[in-house]
């Protein structure tokens, strides 16, 4: 369920306007991202996809698996702009996260375009999940939460980038490892490369901020992490076998078996457990102790 919105967004005081490099790790990510630009139309070997090599039920499964990837990727389109605005509204904040996030948003659009187009080639993009409960998991209204002045920006970054983007990257790597089809492989290669920077951004940012956190801020961060893990990820947003969407879990099994870029529960579960354990250890080093069970 989406959470309450206080109705207040921070008020901008633009000057002094810092545009100088400040967080060198994030500035490097921004510079790398500009140099790593790619083009979904030209850099994916779409012409190599031959649907006649696959049975109709495999194509249908893969169309659903890639539609689900598109539903997830789409989340960045409203969320990242809200993050950019929030960073701009926070007084005297560094320019590096703002710059980096503008590139991230473009990359999210490319990911979305690729997932949507591949689903179309596989037989047709599916516009929504069959399960209303699963659909509700996508309607978190994250752009509202980011802009909500009553919520901590650092807690948001910790939970939604540290946890969610990091997990997203690990699952994407797994799916890439299972992909033998050249189109699926090429798309996932680009997604992994971009998402590696997206995940790194969160941790670099948190490392920069951690020294300034007090107990109340660490508590707010821990609470946000617990909410995201408990109410979103362990409900199956990314690991669909945790949700009631058995149709998508089955589709992922078939898609994975055909080398079209997905994974089974048996493959995803250890990745989920390992990533959450590693993330909690990383947060502990930053002084944040979250209880995720």
């Amino acid at each position, binding site marked *: 369920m*989406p959470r309450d*919105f206080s*109705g207040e*967004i921070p008020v*901008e005081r*633009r*000057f*002094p*306007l*810092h*545009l*100088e490099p400040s967080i060198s790790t994030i500035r490097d990510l921004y*510079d790398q991202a*500009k*140099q790593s*630009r790619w*083009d*979904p*139309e*030209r850099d994916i070997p779409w012409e190599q996809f031959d649907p006649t090599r696959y049975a109709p039920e495999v194509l249908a499964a893969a169309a659903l698996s890639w539609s689900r990837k*598109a*539903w997830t990727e*789409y*989340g960045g*389109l*409203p969320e*990242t*702009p*809200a993050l*950019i*605005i929030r960073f*701009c*509204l926070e007084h005297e904040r560094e320019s590096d996260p*703002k*710059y980096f996030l*503008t*590139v991230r*948003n*473009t990359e*999210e*659009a*490319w990911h*979305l*375009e690729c997932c*949507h187009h591949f689903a179309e080639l596989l037989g047709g*993009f599916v*516009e*929504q*999940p069959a399960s209303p409960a699963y*659909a509700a998991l*996508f*309607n*978190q*209204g*994250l*752009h*509202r939460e980011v*802009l909500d002045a009553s919520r901590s920006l650092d807690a948001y970054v910790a939970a939604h980038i540290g946890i969610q983007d990091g997990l997203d990257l690990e699952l994407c790597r797994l799916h890439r490892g299972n992909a033998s089809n050249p189109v699926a492989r090429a798309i996932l290669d680009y997604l992994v490369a971009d998402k590696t920077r997206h995940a790194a951004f969160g941790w670099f940012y948190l490392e920069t901020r951690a020294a300034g956190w007090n107990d109340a801020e660490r508590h707010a961060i821990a609470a946000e992490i617990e909410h995201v893990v408990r109410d979103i990820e362990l409900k199956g947003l990314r690991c669909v076998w945790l949700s009631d969407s058995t149709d998508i879990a089955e589709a992922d099994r078939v898609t994975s078996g055909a080398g079209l870029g997905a994974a089974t529960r048996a493959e995803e579960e250890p990745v989920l457990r390992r990533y959450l354990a590693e993330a909690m250890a990383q947060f502990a080093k930053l002084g944040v102790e979250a209880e995720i069970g």
Partner: protein
Amino acid sequence: MSIAETSTHPPRKPTLLDRPEQRFPLKLDVEIKKVRDLFRAATRNQWDPCTDIDWSALEGLDIDNTHRHAARMYWSRRAWSEYGAISESPALLIRFCEEKREPDLRYFFTIRTQEESRHAEACYLMAEHLGGYIQQPALVDFQKSVATHGVRKMALDPETPLEAIIAALVCAAEEVAFDVFRHLVEITPNKAANQVLRSIMRDEVRHCGFGWAYLEHRIPRMSRAEIDVCEKAVITMIRDVEMNGYHSSWLAPDSAATRGEIEADRLTWQAGLGATVEELEKPVFVESVRSIRERLAPFGIAIPMFEHPKFDGLV
């Protein structure tokens, strides 16, 4: 709640952020081909201010400190202005998502915001290479001229029609900006400054193209009353924002801040580093307004002639 509390804290006007997200059904097909093509063209034509500008052209300039300082100020001011779009353009993308507008708009605006950050970065680097970026205006008055013109607030206000925002912000304000950029490219001799201006101008072509393509798509589906709102928004943008000096300092009301800005522009232009002056820009502005008026007329948007003390007749 007491009456006193009610009077001091009027009910907050709801914004788009008060609406719960409804992501599905998620439609991603091409609906406005011209806009989707702009997104793809933008993808193909990216550039990097760090590596694609010949910054060596700013080494060993034969200019005195007065001209150098003016150019630093000019490019810092331009960076502040470009930065404004980084913080405002994303609000429109949120609006497109919330209102489930044509998917092409959402795709295009992701890269548009990135282009705004490139522009801010390039202008910042110009100022840095000229001696140092300046973080804030010297005069408080000056802050108003580079501050927001309310795009973020309008974008998140469901009662402000999106088409009116696009018509005013893109088809009027960005069109004027583009025409001025083209003029600056024509008159700026320094290689680095010219490359920066040309690179920004190439992005701005697409930004303007987006606005016209969107109006072309939407106007046939709009009522006369809705088109009237667009017309009013464009008139306000030209008369109260552009002709108040938003892009061109010489159009602003006289003040110490305005005089300082005009002088910095003149010194920067004299140094060949990328500004222009009233006598050169005036015909560009007149032609820009005429062109906007002509292009909006077929949409049923009638833009009147405007008066301004800087012009002998109507503009």
